[in-house]
């Protein structure tokens, strides 16, 4: 059952993309900013998890929680320091700042610990199960279940809580939300915190699943997650999840057909096709730009 196996590989990869894509999409949805530093928050999450597990002997779940908390704080810090004062500036100014923040995080990390890679310790048992001829590792199951739980919690926060209602209101119309007495600044900060926490969780999961982490590891997954977010329709939460999964499975299929060196190209070809034929993404509604 080679194809079942490949599907499982694809979904595991896709759920990591989905977790990162959620942060992109939430931030874009609320302040229309592509936060390019998001991939680096993911990297910081991976390193926090690494130190928690290998230096402080924490288990997988405490390490995951710690990485999420630290990344949430980092996300809020970045937003307050770098993006808040640019809220009324042009979008290109904010975008360039985001790239600057991204480089700053990468090279500050290299400055403090060097560029050499680090190997994640084994925290989740590497036991595998046979299922219809496919090998399913404990790690894949773990990744998938943690991702699903996190996404369900996110859905709950966005749709059932007061802060979620505020987030939806701000993303709909900032001015009207402010007139209704919503604290826009705090709402944006909370969005950054949640998005960054998800990226941090993705970092730890990535480390456990793929073992190798390094200070520039966030670049490619960050860009791929951006593609996933656009694919699903940027600004739409279920779109990010679907986009991530589709991208992961497509990449796996491309490799499975024997075009492994075309895998990265496939992701960007998808991006180009989406931008040409359906710029608002799979889940997006075609709205006309207001002039």
């Amino acid at each position, binding site marked *: 059952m*080679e194809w079942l196996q490949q599907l499982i590989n694809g979904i*595991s*990869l896709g759920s990591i993309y989905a977790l990162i894509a959620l942060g992109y999409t939430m931030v874009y949805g609320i302040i229309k900013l592509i936060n390019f530093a998001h991939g680096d928050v993911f990297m910081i999450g991976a390193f926090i998890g690494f130190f928690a597990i290998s230096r402080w002997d924490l288990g997988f779940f405490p390490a995951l929680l710690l990485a999420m908390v630290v990344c949430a704080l980092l996300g809020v810090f970045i937003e307050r320091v770098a993006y808040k004062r640019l809220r009324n500036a042009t979008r290109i100014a904010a975008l360039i700042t985001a790239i600057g923040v991204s480089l700053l995080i990468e090279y500050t990390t290299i400055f403090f610990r060097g560029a050499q890679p680090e190997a994640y310790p084994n925290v989740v048992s590497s036991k595998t199960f046979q299922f219809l001829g496919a090998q399913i590792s404990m790690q894949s199951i773990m990744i998938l279940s943690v991702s699903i739980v996190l996404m369900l919690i996110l859905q709950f926060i966005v749709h059932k809580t007061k802060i979620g209602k505020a987030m939806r209101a701000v993303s709909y119309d900032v001015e009207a939300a402010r007139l209704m007495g919503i604290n826009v600044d705090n709402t944006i900060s909370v969005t950054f915190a949640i998005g960054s926490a998800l990226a941090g969780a993705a970092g730890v999961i990535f480390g456990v699943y793929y073992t190798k982490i390094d200070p520039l590891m966030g670049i490619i997954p960050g860009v791929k997650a951006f593609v996933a977010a656009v694919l699903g329709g940027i600004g739409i939460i279920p779109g990010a999840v679907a986009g991530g999964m589709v991208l992961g499975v497509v990449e796996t299929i491309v490799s499975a057909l024997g075009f*492994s*060196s075309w895998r990265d190209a496939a992701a960007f070809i998808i991006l180009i096709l989406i931008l040409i034929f359906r710029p608002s993404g799979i889940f997006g509604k075609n709205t006309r730009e207001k002039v």
Partner: protein
Amino acid sequence: MVANSKLKKYASVFLASSLVVGLLAGCGSKDQSTTSGSKGNSSKEVKIGLNLELSGNVASYGSGIAKGARLAIKEINDNGGIDGKKIVPVEIDNKSDAAEATAAAIKLATQEKVVAQIGSATSGNTVAAVQIANKNKMPVIGPSATSPTVTVNSDNSVNEYAFRTCFIDPFQGRIAANFALNTLKAKNVAIFSDSASDYAKGLAKSFKETIEENGGKVVAEESYVAKDTDFKSTLTRLKSKKPDFIYIPGYYEEVGLIVKQAREAGITVPLMGGDGWDSPKMVELAGGDSLNNTFFTNHYSSEDPDEKIQKFVEAFKGANKDQAPDAFNALGYDTVYWLKDAIERAGSTDGEKVKDALAETKDLSLVTGTFSVDENHHPVKSATVLEFKDGKQVFNSKVNP
């Protein structure tokens, strides 16, 4: 426009001053490293240049060679030097950068007037010094420059003054193919190589040729790109082709992950690679269990029972706090002894004569094998096959070309 021209002025002042500072810095380090004034090679000493990566991203290679070379120089000087002359090393750090390596070679050739240059560790940085070497008649020996391009140009002409102590990349592929066919009795092999590196491509190519020449079959060929982390889909595809041996030339950063993911995907057949596997990080990335039943070719093993090797291992441990020497240490050590042998045979420290003596080397017995130099300045020597057992590198066998 006014602001612009002002900016340009500042920029030019800045550039000029940084040039001056650079020159001054160069002079400073010259004064430190020159021990016998500007006289060059006096009758009592032989100056040898070490142009090595002592800092930067491949510092571990360069400093490994330096350690081996220092030990050899100390031993030779303690035993009376070369024809009664003491070796004086001139060490320059090329910061793992090709431009710095060129600058260092110019300095060694024109200011220090060394007999020969040892280094650099990587092929790229050695190539950077080759032109200078040819022009100034200063032999250059790259201890671990495995790329064929160091000594042979693209038009098949040989760089007269360029040499290397290690075997070249394609040679490892041949050794691995013979090992797979003869020792492991493999018939249907697969290749999974790094498509972005000349090193891996060279190994894969000669491996494939040797397998096909000797009646084996390559059932699958796949590639990855350096920095990839997810190999599961390709490995699943490889598994379905049912190979009984997989050759994975590449560097440890990716190979470590590939080995781990291959075992997770249920691939149990022997895996093999080249000296790019030689790193302590390999075990951390792949895990000791996954590495069982994997092999790689290397220049030498500190566990080789050979008497000459054990003598070297002991001397190295004595000088370096009980640390066992790795391949770079051994190659650095051998390079100095090779150069000593050539200078003695030439009976002179003249660059041209030393170059001829180096090229004529035959059956010289060194730590990394007995070797001769062929017409392309490639050493012909034996390679060692190492095996991983529970996360430890174990000497498996020695394979002659």
